[in-house]
Structures are given as structure tokens and as C-alpha cells.
């Protein structure tokens, strides 16, 4: 009996310790944002004496913060939408039609999951330059779509392959074309797989950094991660102000995560498990 109690207490102690490890950095960042500069330099670990919301207020109203949010929303939403359209069409073709070079082409897409993005950065700058899209959100969107496609096609193809062919054949007999089958039969069925693709890409792209760092120079076009990087190089000496900015910047995603944690956890990991 005492052995059981002891084992249980050790278990929960360990679990609690890992809660601290996982959350303390975020918690500290938030409380640090509530302190004044003098308080932070005096006492870094402690809780704030009083809650000074001034830093948060300053970030929200005196800096470019809202621009970053708007940019992130525009870029992420457009990229996810385009990805879903292109990937579900291609996933359907790979799963349900036969054509010469099908598996080769599929592997070409699949390889995209393994490609280090650094190999494309220098040429992309040139390509977008010649398209007159240098330093624009469109350039960022197009790169995001291109790099989101492989895993998205992979997930959707896997789903379409699992749909019983009888459904499709029934629709065919009723006179549906390939496009009709896709639109009226497959796409409605694929809603759960589309949800996974949307969540995976949304979270990944919302937090994306390298492409934004490379392709965007104008500060007013920065997404949230790039904006935070620039904010920290500019105001990094003001630790509480930076902490407040970082805290606000993660708030939208944290809120979504709190309400949809099951879907997000599954969305971010099920692509991997299908490998």
C-alpha cells in the first residue's frame, strides 16, 4: 500500500516537474513583461511587485505590432488556401487515376519533404526579382505553398486511397465526370483530412521564419516571427518591453491551441505517422 502511494507521488512529482520545464520560460516571459526596467534588473526571478501593463500598452499602440498581425493573417491564410486547393486536386489525381510516370512524379513531390530550404533561397531572390515580386507578401505566399505541398499531397493522397471505390463508381454510373467525382464525392468525404492539412500548414506557416527573413526586407511587410526578430534587435535592451512584445505575439496561437489542442496535436503529428 505505502509502495503504491510512494510510486504515485513520485509519478506526479515527475509530471509536475516537466510541467514547470515546459511552461516556465513562457510564464517568465509574461511576468517579465509586467515589470518595469528597474525591477527586472533588480530581480529577474521574482513575480512583479505590481502589474505594469505599460509595456503591453506600448507594444500594442506605439509599435508596428498590428501590421505584423495583419501580414501574418494575409500570408498564412492565402498560403493555406492555395495549398489545400492544389494539394487536394493533386492528391486525388495520384490516388485515383492512372497515368504514365505517376509514381515517379509522386516521389518527386515526396522528396520535397526532405529538402533543406536553404538550397532555394538565393535563386528564389532572383526569381522573385525578375517577376517584380521582390520583397512582397506574394513572394512569401508562393514559397510557402511550394514547400507545403509535399506533405499536404501526401496526407490527402493517403486519405483518398482509403475511400471505397464503390462510391466513385456509383457516381460514375450516375454520369459524373472526374471533376464531378472529385467535387461532389471525394472532397466532402475528405473533410477530416483537409482539416489536418489546414492545421498542420497553418501552425507551421504562422511560425515560419527563414523564408520571411530572406524574402522580406520592408519592415512594414514583416510577419509576426520576423517582426519579433526585428523588434528584439531594435529594442532588445529593454528586456520587459521585448518580453511584453513576445508574449503578445504568441497569444493568438496560444488561444487557438487552448481551445483546439486535440486537433492541433493530431494535426501536427499525423503527417509524420503516415510516413
Amino acid at each position, binding site marked *: 500500500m505505502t509502495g503504491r502511494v510512494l510510486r504515485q507521488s513520485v509519478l*506526479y512529482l515527475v509530471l509536475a516537474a516537466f510541467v514547470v520545464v515546459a511552461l516556465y520560460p513562457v510564464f517568465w516571459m509574461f511576468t517579465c513583461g509586467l515589470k518595469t526596467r528597474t525591477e527586472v534588473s533588480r530581480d529577474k526571478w521574482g513575480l512583479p511587485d505590481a502589474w505594469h501593463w505599460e509595456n503591453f500598452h506600448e507594444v500594442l499602440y506605439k509599435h508596428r505590432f498590428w501590421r505584423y498581425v495583419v501580414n501574418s493573417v494575409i500570408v498564412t491564410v492565402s498560403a493555406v488556401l492555395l495549398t489545400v486547393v492544389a494539394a487536394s486536386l493533386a492528391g486525388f489525381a495520384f490516388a485515383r487515376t492512372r497515368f504514365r510516370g505517376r509514381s515517379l512524379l509522386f516521389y518527386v513531390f515526396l522528396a520535397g519533404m526532405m*529538402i*533543406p530550404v536553404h538550397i532555394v533561397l538565393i535563386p528564389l531572390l532572383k526569381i522573385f526579382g525578375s517577376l517584380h515580386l521582390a520583397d512582397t507578401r506574394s513572394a512569401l505566399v508562393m514559397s510557402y505553398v511550394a514547400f507545403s505541398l509535399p506533405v499536404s499531397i501526401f496526407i490527402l493522397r493517403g486519405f483518398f486511397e482509403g475511400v471505397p471505390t464503390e462510391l466513385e463508381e456509383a457516381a460514375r454510373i450516375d454520369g459524373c465526370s472526374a471533376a464531378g467525382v472529385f467535387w461532389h464525392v471525394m472532397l466532402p468525404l475528405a473533410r477530416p483530412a483537409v482539416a489536418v492539412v489546414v492545421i498542420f500548414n497553418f501552425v507551421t506557416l504562422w511560425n515560419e521564419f527563414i523564408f520571411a527573413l530572406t524574402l522580406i526586407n520592408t519592415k512594414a511587410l514583416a510577419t509576426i516571427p520576423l517582426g519579433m526578430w526585428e523588434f528584439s534587435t531594435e529594442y532588445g535592451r529593454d528586456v520587459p518591453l521585448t518580453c511584453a512584445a513576445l508574449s503578445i505575439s504568441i497569444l493568438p*496561437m496560444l488561444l487557438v491551441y487552448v481551445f483546439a489542442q486535440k486537433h492541433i496535436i493530431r494535426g501536427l503529428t499525423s503527417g509524420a505517422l503516415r510516413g
Partner: protein
Amino acid sequence: MNRYARPRTVWLFLVPALAFYLSFVALPIAQSFYVSLFDWPTHAAAPARFVGLENYARLVNDGVFWKALSHNVALVVLSLVIQLPVALFLAALLSGRVFARGFFRTVYFTPMVLPTVVIALVWRQILLPATSAGLLTQLLAWLGLPSPADGFLGDPRFALLSVILTISWRYVPFHMVLFIAGIETIPEELYEAARIDGANARQLFRHITLPSLAPVVRISAVLSIVGSLKYFDLVYVMTGGGPPEHVTELMTTYMFKIGIDQQTIGYGSAVAVAGFLISMLVVVAVMCFRWHRRPAVTEVHP
């Protein structure tokens, strides 16, 4: 399977994806190979000079690149050694009968939804030297333990390890969730049968959980290896590859410095191509290893 779809229709389905993929993935890769064969002047006015493999000859003799590669190897090895066991440990803890399991899983997973930039900036504060009131140094001082005078990121002995531990902090929960999902697919009957035979908890883990998890562990390992070879974000923001002497330089941060920051695009492309080829070589090697004894892949339906 589909007798009815005409070839033309099939291509219509593929065109949008192909257009994006060819223009912004395939074409740039080919261009990188091409660009790496030239010496490009920093000012656009002068023409590029064909130099053949000169950039690669320079690469082979570039100590910094080899150093960066060795750091990538360290990242691969330490990620496997640190992340997978910790993730397995947490997954095992959370797979038993645990009160508020979902809560713990959700909390542990939080680092995975945060932007790497934010993680890097916060951990930089934690790892600062005592003179700048670093959190960890203060904690160690309170415990009566020494810490490096220049902070964990400023000291060449600790910088790389600190960065790798921060990376692990972010990615452990990812592997943990994969393992939990894997454990959930193990049929309960296996455990029951073993319990009837008198197996204890440790034996159950050793002889049922671990072997059944092998395919998932292999997936985790592949993802971890591939990810470590192309890693960039946290290192770039936390140290920029420094402190000065390239102590935490990775292939990607080095490429970024040369090709993007300094605009030396010929040599920068050579570094990028080398990193690409090394990554792909490892991917192919790992995949072949996997195909040799193909596991029953865990399918998690969305």
C-alpha cells in the same frame, strides 16, 4: 483504377501543384547548382565568371564548413540520444492510468506551437551571463554551483550544448506525441496475456511496449536526423553561429551568412548545394535501411 479519366483531365488536376512546385522548388534547386559554378561580382553590373568547380575546391579547404558539418553531426547524434529517450520516458508515464493525462499532454506539447524566434529569444535571456542577470546562472548561484562567466551561450565549451538542449526542449514533445499514439495502438490483449504469465510493469515495457514501438521509433529517428541536418532557426536567433569563432555554426547558418548576408552567391550556393547533397545522401541511406526490413507502419486516420 479509373478507366474514365482522360489524360488531359488528369493533368488539369496536377497543374496547380506542379506549377508551384516546379517554379519555386525544382527550378531554384537546379539554379543553385548552376550558380555555384560561377564567381558572381557583388555589383550587378559586372558579368559572372565561369569558374567550374572552384567554389567546391574552396569549400573542401574551408575549415569553417567542416566545423559546421561536425556541429550538424553533433546535433544529429545528441538529438537522437537526448530527445528520443526523454520523449519515450514521458510517453510511457502518460500511457498508464494517469489523472489529467490530457492536461499533461497538452501542456508538454506547448513548445511545439510557439514560434522558434520567440523560443530562441526567451532562452537567450535564460542563458545570459551573471553580469546580465541570466536566470539559469542566478539559479545555479543560489544552489551554490558555478556557471560560466560569459554565460552559457558566450562560453565556447557550453554554447553548442546549450543550443542543442534548447532545440531538444522544443522537439521532445513532438516525439512524445508520436510515441503515445504508437503505444495506444498496441492491443491490450498482449498486456493481459503477459500479466497472466506474471510479468511486472518493467517487463511489460521492456518486452511488449518497446518492441511494438520500434516502427514509430524508427520514424521519429528519421525525422530527427533529417531535421537536424537542415536545422537553422533556433541557432540563427540564439547565437548567429557564434560566439565569434563559429562555435555553434551549422551548415545552414554558414550558408545564410555567406549567400544572403554577404551576397557572395557563387560560394554561398556551393555551401547550399553541399548541405543539400549531404542531407539527401543521408535521407537515401536511412530510407534504404528502412526498406530493408519494412515495418508495419502505424496509420493514424485523421
